[in-house]
């Protein structure tokens, strides 16, 4: 199964939803526009963004004389894919590279870390995992299991130690082993906790200072997240200057529309999207494919 198929399968529910709009007799009337807006809102894109996209499309339709559903759909794909920021470099392919994973509790940081280590191994890269989530019970053990699965070295210290010190050790080890890719898992935290955000800022600072390779800070966000996702991304970005995001759990019925808003508002590229449980289900993001799959292009 090709990448596009997998993505399409993952996003099949959203596709169905939008297809209904485009196939309903093909008539473009007031109901069509209202329906389109509704569907976009239901995809977690946010009421304001949805209205804006619909209005823009409507204007374009009038200007360019787009009267049929297929033409409008093509325009919508183009419009949506423009919303995504483009990545200058891919921190997982352009090695050597060090990546810190941040996000709220339960977003899927540890799992993403583990999967990326597996992929790096497959690509023949030397990868090191750093267990800087020293807060959550058994987070270290969880990462160790992922390390075993992908035969990757995991640098750990006991639970409760300063996460920044773990990062320091990880970088040190990475230098010794001349590792290509360093992936560091941090503890999940709500963006509303100033103390925890300060702690994370310190972790990032220490890592950036110590590392002799480019350091990227990547926000991991759950596709089911609603409008609060934008708050999350803003707060994390303010505190840490994010480099990009990874959207997980797109294999459910959630449409991940919040990613559109985040990428657009904060000009952050989406590095990977998770559309399933397997290693191969963590895919490189492609704006056009994503928008296509979302809109239902065959």
């Amino acid at each position, binding site marked *: 199964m090709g990448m596009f198929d997998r993505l399409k399968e993952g996003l099949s529910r959203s596709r169905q939803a939008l297809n209904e709009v485009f196939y309903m007799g093909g008539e473009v009337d007031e109901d069509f526009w209202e329906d389109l807006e509704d569907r976009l809102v239901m995809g977690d894109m946010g009421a304001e963004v949805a209205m804006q996209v619909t209005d823009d499309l409507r204007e374009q339709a009038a200007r360019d004389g787009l009267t049929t559903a297929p033409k409008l759909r093509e325009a919508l794909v183009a419009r949506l894919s423009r919303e995504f920021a483009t990545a200058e470099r891919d921190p997982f392919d352009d090695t050597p590279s060090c990546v810190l994973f941040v996000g709220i509790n339960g977003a899927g940081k540890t799992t993403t870390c583990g999967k990326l280590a597996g992929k790096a191994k497959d690509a023949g890269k030397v990868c090191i995992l750093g267990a800087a989530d020293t807060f959550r019970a*058994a987070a270290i053990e*969880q990462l160790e299991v992922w390390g075993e699965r992908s035969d990757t070295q995991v640098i750990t210290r006991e639970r409760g130690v300063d996460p920044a010190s773990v990062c320091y050790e990880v970088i040190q080890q990475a230098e010794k082993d001349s590792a290509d890719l360093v992936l560091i898992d941090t503890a999940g935290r709500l963006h509303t906790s100033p*103390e925890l955000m300060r702690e994370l800022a310190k972790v990032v600072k220490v890592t950036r200072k110590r590392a002799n390779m480019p350091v990227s800070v990547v926000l991991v966000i759950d596709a089911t997240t609603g409008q*609060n*996702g934008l708050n999350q991304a803003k707060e994390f970005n303010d505190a840490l200057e994010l480099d990009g995001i990874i959207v997980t759990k797109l294999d459910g019925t959630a449409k991940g529309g919040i990613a559109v808003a985040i990428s657009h508002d904060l000009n952050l590229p989406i590095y990977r999207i998770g559309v399933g449980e397997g290693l191969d289900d963590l895919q490189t993001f492609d704006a056009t494919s994503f928008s296509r799959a979302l809109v239902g292009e065959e």
Partner: protein
Amino acid sequence: MFNSLSDRLNSTFDKLRGKGRLTEDDINAAMREIRMALLEADVNYRVVKGFVAECKEKCMTAEVLDSLTPAQNVVRIVLDQLTKLLGTTESRLTLAQNRTPNVVMLVGLQGSGKTTAASKLAYLLKKQGHSPLLAACDVHRPAAADQLETLGGEIGVPVFRGDGKDAVAVAKGGIQDAVDRLCDIVIVDTAGRLQVDEEMMQEAVDIKNVVKPDQILMVVDAMTGQDIVNVVTEFANRVDFDGVIMSKLDGDARGGGALSVREVTGKPIKYVSMGEKPDSLEVFHPDRMAKRILGMGDVYGIIEQAQQAADQQNIESAERMLREGFTMDDMLEQMQQVRKMGGLKKMIGMLPGGDRMLAQAGGNMDDSQITRIESMIYSMTKEERLKPKKINGQRRKRIARGSGRSVQEVNQLLKQWGEMNKMMGKMRQMANEGASSKKARRQMKNMMRGFGGANGLDLNQISNSFGKGMKF
């Protein structure tokens, strides 16, 4: 900055305020705002549609349109509707009386907070006098059982972790283990699963059929977006859960999902989970939640928490304060009391209009003010703490240097202490006058209990820290 639901509704009604009579257009404008606000709060689109239509209908009566205070009427209607939607009665855990052990099963998506909620629930039940056992039936996520075991160890609740890959067998083993250990409630923590994952959903059904839970609770992340409707509908169809635990409500998500869940499945929200600590699972109160969403504050929540924090020791220390006056040590203790209750931010968020104040403060209101005061008090000698009156200019300078604060801040702290002490003096007077009658003394004691439980001063403290002289 994103507007919260209460901000949006407040601004809507600020616009309506001052209007003598409302027209249908005014109502429409208000409803549009409510619609947008609810959508931004992640209430499901369809639920919003129904809600707004119903509210509008209720608002279009002569009673509202002709009344002198139409805005207030609209607020009341929206509040009533919201409360109704959230469930009109508070719903607790219902367990069969004649069954030992009772079984509670937790289900939900990955990362919604099931394992954390399981340990919190165990802690709550233990506090209520039960003897719970945690069964770690998440055999899929690496180290999930380790996590539960660690959490169980922290709160002193036994954890059963079977070996192998069969969640159903582990669940069965957990029940047997509870019988052996004479535990009266088993909390079954299951793996996170997507509602479209047929195999995993079947596993949940299998576990359910084997352990026959008294209650199945679904853990739902308060930050979930529109998709919440698909998720809970499917879970309701397959495992037919009895109620919901809303997790991560300590963030700034408005938890509009609570409305959707209730409306779509009819299942009640039973608990809300508000933090990392084991005691942060609270019973869900629909009326409070609705008020909170509308920015009307959760006053009851504060009172309840204050009562919990005020234990016998506080009453004793309050009586000592009466006899000997209010010292800096007492002030320190009160600061720590505020922390115990979840910090300033949580307390302010619960007060009427608190959300707006927090937004005004830039949303980064934290407990640094408390930390500052603590550091200043810690920089005092024992003698100074007992008799703050003897802190002269020289000593002030030393305290400022020692705590890294300015002399002005030390002055402010002393001024605050002075006010508190004056208040104490008044109370002492009252106590002395009333000492002859038993009733008066009892009243006094009650008053002191509230006082010792960190009220009066802290509210002053809160308003001071805003520097805008807001009064409660």
